[in-house]
């Protein structure tokens, strides 16, 4: 028998809804489904073969293909830092409001310390109430230096200060925490572009909240177009999420997800496990 367009559409409809229900952006679910459809329509299969099973397996493979960048371009952060000749290795965390950049900056510092690397934090959120105190307290807990200026100071200047401080002392890494910003605000995107331009980070990381819906695609795309992201971190994965956010980020940035945040403690940073996410998305 031949796989007809009608049969593929019917099979894909249910599977698409499952992906969308797991927070895969509708656009991404559509694009992946279109690829599957193109490859299956007109294909001859055995009379006893189950079309729904074939479509499902084909979709699963398409999802694996999107997530493959996480395997092929996996970043070994510790090696990258150790291999950089001219210290410091500069990491910048960017993203919209409330996704977990500040806590993630502290988690990364905690990780580096445990791996025998020294690092400092840069308080480049000079706008939001309590942002400087928040990062200072993290630095205090971790017993590391935080470079800060006052509220209203230039975010890029703070980052620049931090890099110079680290360079003078041969410190392994600088982790720059930036202010949350909606990617639709042109002025705020100019501000973060300036921070990146001034310090030229080795790693520009987009921090995304795993509970985000279709907006994840717009956020990741805009930050990527403006800054050229090197990778992403997905937070709040412990909130019983279904994993679609990871697919949307991988799809639009074509860059790896380095870590996932799985709680509110410093230890709650894990490596992104592709198999685990595929199992969540297509059980």
């Amino acid at each position, binding site marked *: 028998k031949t796989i007809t367009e009608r049969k593929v559409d019917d099979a894909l409809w249910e599977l698409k*809804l499952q992906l*969308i*229900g*797991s*927070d895969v952006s*509708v*656009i991404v679910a559509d694009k992946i489904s279109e690829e599957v459809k193109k490859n299956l329509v007109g294909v001859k299969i055995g009379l006893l073969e189950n079309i729904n099973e074939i479509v499902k397996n084909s979709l699963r493979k398409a999802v694996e293909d999107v997530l493959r960048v996480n395997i092929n371009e996996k970043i070994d952060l510790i090696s990258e830092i150790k291999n950089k000749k001219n210290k410091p290795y500069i990491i910048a965390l960017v993203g*919209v*409001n*409330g*996704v*977990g950049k500040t806590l993630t900056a502290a988690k990364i510092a905690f990780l580096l310390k445990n791996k025998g690397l020294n690092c400092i934090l840069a308080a480049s959120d000079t*706008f*939001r*109430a*309590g*942002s400087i*105190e*928040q*990062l*200072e*307290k*993290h630095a205090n*807990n971790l017993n590391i230096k935080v470079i800060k200026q006052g509220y209203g100071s230039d975010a890029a200047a703070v980052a620049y200060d931090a890099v110079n401080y680290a360079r003078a002392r041969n410190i392994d890494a600088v982790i720059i925490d930036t202010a*949350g910003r*909606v*990617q*639709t*605000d042109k002025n705020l995107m100019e501000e973060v572009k300036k921070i990146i331009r001034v310090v030229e980070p080795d790693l520009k990381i987009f921090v995304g*909240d795993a*509970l*985000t*819906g*279709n*907006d*994840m695609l*717009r*956020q990741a795309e805009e930050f990527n177009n403006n800054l050229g992201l090197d990778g992403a971190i997905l937070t*709040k994965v*412990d*909130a*019983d*999420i*279904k994993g*679609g*956010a990871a697919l949307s980020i991988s799809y639009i940035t074509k860059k790896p997800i380095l870590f996932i945040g799985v709680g*509110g403690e410093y230890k709650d940073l894990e490596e992104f496990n592709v198999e685990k996410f595929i199992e969540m998305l297509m059980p």
Partner: protein
Amino acid sequence: SLGKKLSEAVRKLVRAPLVDEKAVKEFIIELQRALLEADTNVELVLELSKRIEKRAMEVELPPGITRREYVLKMVYEELTSILGKRSEPIRLKPGQSNVIMLVGIQGSGKTTTAGKLAKYFKKRGVKTALVCTDTFRLGAYEQLKQLAQQIEVPFYGEPATKDAVKIAKNGINFFKEEKIEAIIIDTAGRHKEEKSLFEEMISLSKEIKPQEIILVIDGSLGQQAYIQAKAFAEATNIGSIIVTKLDGSGRGGGALSAVAATGAPIKFIGMGEKIDDLESFDPPSFLSRLLG
């Protein structure tokens, strides 16, 4: 207003002289797509579109209305029946201390909204105070204190205390003495998997008996909105919802789903990071944003 694709689907639908089943089906698919792209819960979308499809197939139109007007009216009616026709105010009993407690998922905007709400009340002549009961997040005390100082509203917190209920009670007693009419309690972020944090929220609700518990929802929250909101509503009596970050590109379907899950009306929306960026909820503009 409707998005381009949905408008086109409506145009196709109404060009048909009789009820064209194919045109209705195409319209329903576009409607589902618009709602899903807006982050509306999948089950809710299927339920809504089934109802609208059935009604759109009715051959008998009410007198004096075109099929186009009928279909659009139907979509807005179905969505409005969830959201309500107009925004309701927060009811403050005069001459007494009203306790308003903000709860929600980590990073949703509770602390910022507490500040915004305090300024909103103060502007309307209500004696207002802020209390920080977030004992987990670093700098939570400083964050709310700075907002309180910015708008010159009294503030209470106990930076060294770990017991949120104790701080809340002490803050409320303190401000009752000061004849404060609206005491806004900011709480720590939490999600439904964090059982002990949910226990804390239940404790807070039982011990301080707020006049109103407000669930703060991020405007870009996705498919988990329905089930998370449901968990909050089953743990405490959620009286209303505030949707934040609608100055961004989130379409608000998560918030709509939260309303459907809790039965609580949206009373305010956050439209920016500044303390003035709080607006009363306006169902028509929310719906036009939802539908693209």
